[in-house]
C-alpha cells in the first residue's frame, strides 16, 4: 500500500488541488492501516509448505509478512496455478480455458524458495521431507497443502482422453478438460437426449459444483429452446442433494421446478462409451444400467499417496480416502504438533473450497507464529465454507455455512442465502476471482 499512497501523493502535488486529493490520500492511508500487521517476529525457523495451490501460496505470502528471517520453502511440481472455482464457468462455455491458468511463480514473494518437484516422502519423526528429485529438507514446521488426487481409474471404462467426445464430460480434471467438457455438454444442450450428472461417494472439492454444472447446462438448453428434447438426471451416492439440510431442500425444490430428476444413492461404477451406457450401484449394491447422451463424471477423490504413506492420515475415519488427521478448529495434526493440514487434504468435515482456504490460512498462520513466539494461538476455524451456487446464467445463491450446518451469511438482511439473486452471480462472476487473487497475495 505505501506505493499506492505515494502515487496519490505524487498526483496531489498541485497546491490548488491539495485539499481534495488529500482526501483520496487519506483513504489510501486508511487502507494501509487496515492491512497493517504487528511487528514481524524474528526467527530462524525452517518452514516447509507442500503444495503451492490456493492455500500454500496464500500462507507463504502471509508468513513472509509476519516473520523476519524464517526460511520458507514451497514444494510443488506444477508450474501453473489453477483458479479452480472458474472451472464450472469454463465447462459452461462462459469463460475460456486460460481464465483459470496463471503461473505459480508470479504469486510468490521473492523471500520464499520454490522447489518444482513432487514431495515423495514425509518423515514426521525425523522432521524431514524428501522430494522426488532426491533432496531432503529438514523442517521445524510443516504445512501439508498438496490438494487431492482424482481417482479416474476407479470408474471402469473411463479414460481422460475421452472427455469432449461421445458425450463425456469431466470438468474437475483441469482447464483443458473443462473446455472439452463444454464441447460435449454444449452439444447435448443443443441436440438433447439423456443427460446424467454424477458425483462420487467420497469427500470432494466444492460439492456444489456438480449441481452448478447441472443447473447451467439446463439453463443453456432452455435458452436455446432445446430443453424439451432433453432429460436431466442427477445421480449421486448420497441420500441428499447437499450436505447442509436446509440447502438440500432448496436445491430439491429448484430441481423440481426445472424438471431435473434425481437418482439418489446411486454410485457411478463404470461406463461403456461405445454403447453410451453407465452402470451404477444402488443402495443395496445392485447394478443399475442407464443410457446417456451426455454424462458428467466426477471420480472418487483421495489424499495424495505421499500423505497416506507417511502415516499422517486418520486411522479410523475416511480410511479409503486418507485425509490428514488434524484438529478441526486449529488444523494442527493430532499426533505431530509441528504439522498443520491446509485445504483439500485436511481431514475435517467441511472445507474443500477456496473460500474455506481463505478462512483456514489465517488460523494456520496464527498457529505457526504463536508457536514461534511461544504464545497460545487465538484463531479458530469454524468450518466456514462458501459456495456461490449458480442456478442459471445470471443468478446464484450465495450459500455460506459452518461445521454445524448453520447458514453464516456475510451480508445478513441484504443478500439472502437461499434466494436466487443477480448480485450473488455478480459476486461469482466479477468479485470472486479478484478476491481469490487478493487472497493469494495474502491481502484478503
Amino acid at each position, binding site marked *: 500500500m505505501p506505493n499506492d499512497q505515494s502515487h496519490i501523493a505524487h498526483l496531489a502535488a498541485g497546491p490548488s488541488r491539495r485539499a481534495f486529493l488529500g482526501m*483520496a490520500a487519506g483513504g489510501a492511508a486508511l487502507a494501509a492501516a487496515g492491512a497493517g500487521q504487528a511487528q514481524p517476529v524474528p526467527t530462524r525457523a525452517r518452514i516447509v509448505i507442500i503444495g503451492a495451490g490456493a492455500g500454500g501460496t496464500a500462507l507463504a505470502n502471509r508468513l513472509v509478512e509476519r516473520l523476519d528471517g524464517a526460511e520458507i520453502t514451497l514444494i510443488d511440481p506444477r508450474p501453473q496455478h489453477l483458479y479452480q472455482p472458474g472451472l464450472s464457468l469454463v465447462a459452461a462455455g*462462459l469463460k475460456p480455458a486460460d481464465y483459470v491458468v496463471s503461473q505459480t511463480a508470479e504469486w510468490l514473494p521473492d523471500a520464499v524458495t520454490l522447489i518444482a518437484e513432487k514431495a515423495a516422502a514425509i518423515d514426521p519423526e525425523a522432521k524431514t521431507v524428501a522430494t522426488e528429485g532426491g533432496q531432503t529438507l529438514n523442517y521445524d514446521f510443516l504445512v501439508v497443502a498438496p490438494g487431492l488426487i482424482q481417482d479416474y481409474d476407479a470408474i471402469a471404462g473411463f479414460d481422460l482422453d475421452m472427455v469432449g467426445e461421445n458425450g463425456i464430460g469431466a470438468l474437475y480434471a483441469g482447464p483443458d478438460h473443462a473446455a472439452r467438457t463444454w464441447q460435449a455438454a454444449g452439444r447435448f444442450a443443443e441436440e438433447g437426449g439423456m443427460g446424467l450428472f454424477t458425483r462420487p461417494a467420497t469427500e470432494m472439492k466444492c460439492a456444489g459444483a456438480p449441481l452448478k454444472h447441472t443447473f447451467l447446462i439446463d439453463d443453456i438448453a432452455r435458452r436455446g429452446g432445446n430443453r424439451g428434447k432433453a432429460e436431466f438426471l442427477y445421480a449421486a451416492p448420497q441420500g441428499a442433494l447437499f450436505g447442509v439440510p436446509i440447502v438440500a431442500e432448496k436445491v430439491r425444490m429448484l430441481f423440481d421446478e426445472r424438471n431435473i430428476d434425481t437418482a439418489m444413492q446411486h454410485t457411478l461404477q463404470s461406463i461403456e462409451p461405445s454403447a453410451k451406457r453407465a452402470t451404477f450401484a444402488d443402495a443395496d449394491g445392485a447394478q443399475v444400467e442407464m443410457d446417456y447422451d451426455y454424462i458428467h463424471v466426477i471420480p472418487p477423490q483421495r489424499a495424495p499417496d505421499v500423505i497416506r504413506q507417511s502415516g499422517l492420515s486418520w486411522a479410523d475415519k475416511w480410511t479409503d480416502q486418507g485425509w490428514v488427521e488434524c484438529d478441526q478448529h486449529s488444523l494442527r495434526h493430532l499426533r505431530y504438533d509441528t504439522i498443520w493440514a491446509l485445504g483439500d487434504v485436511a481431514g475435517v468435515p467441511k472445507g474443500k473450497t477456496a473460500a474455506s482456504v481463505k478462512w483456514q490460512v489465517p488460523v494456520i498462520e496464527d498457529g505457526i507464529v504463536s508457536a514461534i513466539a511461544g504464545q497460545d494461538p487465538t484463531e479458530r476455524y469454524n468450518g466456514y465454507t462458501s459456495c456461490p451456487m449458480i442456478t442459471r446464467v*445470471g443468478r446464484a445463491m450465495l450459500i455460506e455455512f459452518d461445521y454445524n450446518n448453520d447458514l453464516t451469511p456475510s451480508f445478513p438482511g441484504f443478500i*439472502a442465502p437461499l434466494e436466487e439473486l443477480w448480485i450473488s*452471480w455478480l459476486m461469482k462472476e466479477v468479485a470472486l476471482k*479478484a478476491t481469490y487473487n487478493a487472497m493469494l497475495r495474502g491481502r484478503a
Partner: protein
Amino acid sequence: MQELTFGTLIAVFEEIFGRGLFWIMVALAGLVTLAYIYVLVRDHAVSWRKFLWAQLSMPLGAVAAVWFLLAMTDSRLSDMGGPIDLIVLLGVAAVGAVGLAILVYTLQSLLRPPAQDG
C-alpha cells in the same frame, strides 16, 4: 467473507481492473471531480444552460452504465431476483447518470467559459 475492510476492498478492485488501470481510473474520477469544483468556484455560479445539457445526458449515462455491467457479466435484466438486485441496478444507473452529468457540465464549462456563453 471474513472481514470486509477498506483495504480488502481496494485489493479486490485492484485485482478486478489491474493495479495500474484501477488507480488511473480513481485518478481520472478525482480529476473530473476537481475540474467540476474548479469551474464552479471559477464561475461563482451554476450555468443553467449547461446544467440543462448535463441533465439531459443523465438518462444516457444511466442506460450506458447498466448496459456495460450487464454485458460484462453475462447478465440480463430478467436476472433480477430480489430487492437487493434492483437496489444495486438502480445504484449503478444513478452512478452512471451523475457521473456523465458531471462530465458533461465540466467539459462544457472548460470548453466554453462564461465570457463566451451565449
